């Protein structure tokens, strides 16, 4: 498969402060690539390098087969960009602002702007500076998606959006992917990208510490378990649960009459299910794998070459 975006040993220094210390990654065309990392990890800097808004100090960047330094307007017309912090000022309606961006983007199919605005529930006739943060973000999404670019670079795309609109955004990302577009998006939390991304890169302190498929992250992640049972003494229940492979941090939440326990599970769920069959359960909660926690652990891993 073709590569849509790649970076090799990407270094960016602002004065004496080095923000990116040699970032390497590759994004396959037609996939969704999520970059997550804490604030200040270098996500925005990396994205700005892809659009030639800032210039790398060293290393090589290729976007849609071209170096962004030399790609010029022709390359940027094939990209849709949503900046991390979107400022839209001025006494101008959303419609007029989008018409302006349309004039400096790739060709926009007729009716596309209205269709996107309807999907996101955005009123195009209001002045942009009177829009709430969420509505400004919708306007930013419309201008990024409207010309159906080959590559979408979206910096914290769901910031300020309510959950329903976030769902719509995820649908838009999936549709774009089915159309063959490549999506490069960032977030400081995993939950935003795990629903749509095929691959997740974790960036910390200007370095990629891991590139992993979402499936892979899921396998390494932990789930929370909570169960309520009766007809068994609390310490027996604890012993049973602790005996299951992968279970840890068993706690007794309630012990008078019904027994309520909580624990975390790492790895396969089959052994746990088998054990649960021997109990008289009145309640069971098995959470989705907490990828967030898995990622936070990775954030906390000390840098191997800490100076």
């Amino acid at each position, binding site marked *: 498969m073709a590569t849509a975006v790649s970076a090799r040993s990407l270094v960016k220094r602002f004065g004496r402060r080095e923000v990116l210390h040699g970032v390497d990654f590759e994004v396959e065309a037609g996939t969704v690539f999520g970059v997550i990392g804490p604030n200040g990890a270098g996500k925005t800097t990396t994205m700005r390098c892809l659009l030639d808004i800032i210039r790398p100090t060293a290393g090589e960047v290729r976007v849609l087969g071209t170096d962004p330094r030399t790609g010029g307007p022709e390359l940027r017309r094939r990209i849709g960009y949503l900046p991390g912090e979107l400022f*839209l000022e001025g006494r101008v309606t959303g419609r007029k602002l989008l018409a302006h961006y349309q004039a400096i983007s790739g060709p926009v199919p007729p009716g596309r702007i209205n269709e996107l605005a309807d999907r996101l529930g955005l009123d195009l006739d209001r002045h942009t500076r009177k829009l709430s943060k969420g509505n400004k973000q919708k306007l930013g999404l419309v201008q990024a998606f409207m010309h159906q670019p080959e590559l979408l670079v979206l910096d914290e795309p769901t910031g300020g959006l309510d959950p329903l609109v976030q769902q719509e955004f995820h649908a838009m990302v999936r549709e774009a992917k089915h159309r063959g577009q490549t999506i490069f998006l960032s977030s400081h939390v995993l939950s935003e990208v795990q629903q749509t991304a095929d691959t997740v890169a974790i960036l910390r302190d200007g370095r990629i510490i891991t590139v992993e498929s979402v499936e892979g992250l899921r396998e390494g992640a932990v789930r929370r378990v909570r169960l309520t049972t009766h007809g068994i003494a609390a310490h027996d229940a604890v012993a049973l649960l602790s005996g299951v492979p992968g279970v840890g941090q068993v706690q007794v939440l309630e012990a008078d009459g019904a027994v309520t326990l909580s624990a975390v599970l790492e790895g396969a769920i089959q052994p746990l299910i088998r054990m649960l069959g021997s109990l008289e359960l009145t309640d069971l909660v098995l959470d989705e794998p907490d990828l967030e926690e898995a990622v936070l652990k990775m954030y906390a891993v000390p840098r191997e070459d800490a100076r």
Partner: protein
Amino acid sequence: MNATLPLFRRAFFDTWRSTLGWAAGLAAAAFLYLPLYPSIGGSAQMQDMIDALPAEMTKALNYDQIATGPGYAQATLFGLLGFLLMTIASVAWGAAAVGGDEESGQLELTLAHGVRRVQVVLERAMALLLRVVLLSGLVFVLVLVLNEPSQLGIEPANLFGATVLFAGLALLSGTAALCVGAVTGRKTYGLAAGAAVAVLGYVFNAVGRQSPDVEWLLNLSPYHWAYGNSPVVNGADWAAAGWLWGLSAALVALAAVALEQRDVGA
């Protein structure tokens, strides 16, 4: 691109309210000052009063020629209030064009689209130029209209030359603001640079005229280049006009080169 000069059109049309506001201010200045000439500038009493003022003060305010119609228009409208209003408008637009846009975070999104940085600077400088020319044209027309009724007796050819210098002077401050804004990415620095060009130019002129010892200051004053020979009275010094407009063009070119070289929004 489905329309020509999209950045120019946005910069020009999105500020029509501000352009209209400055036009109203300049019109008010013309209508306030010029009709008063027969009762103030031209009267013998006024001349006596001006003669009674310290010579340094009349020189600093350019009031030494206020007794003639063209001298009155030169000193009051072109040299003082009109100069002030035009300079503020031009500097504000110049500082906002690139530096202000970058500081507010909007330049980043524009540059992520299918535009070149040089194009951004040139189209926005063109929008600045057009607005300054429009306002100057308005002043030209208003003075021409008030010429007869206010008994100013200004030669239209001299008025035209003075207007070209008036526009050039404002443009120099405005492009200085645009250039420093583009180099630093800060609106405030642009405003400071534009204001410095205008204020220092005015002060160097006022001080330089006081004595031969400090006459060299006049050479550093764009205000003096433009108005040293009172163009409304005597006709334009076209070489000075060339300097003002040429330097403005050079500052725009410098802005384009500087923006092309550096990181934006970093």
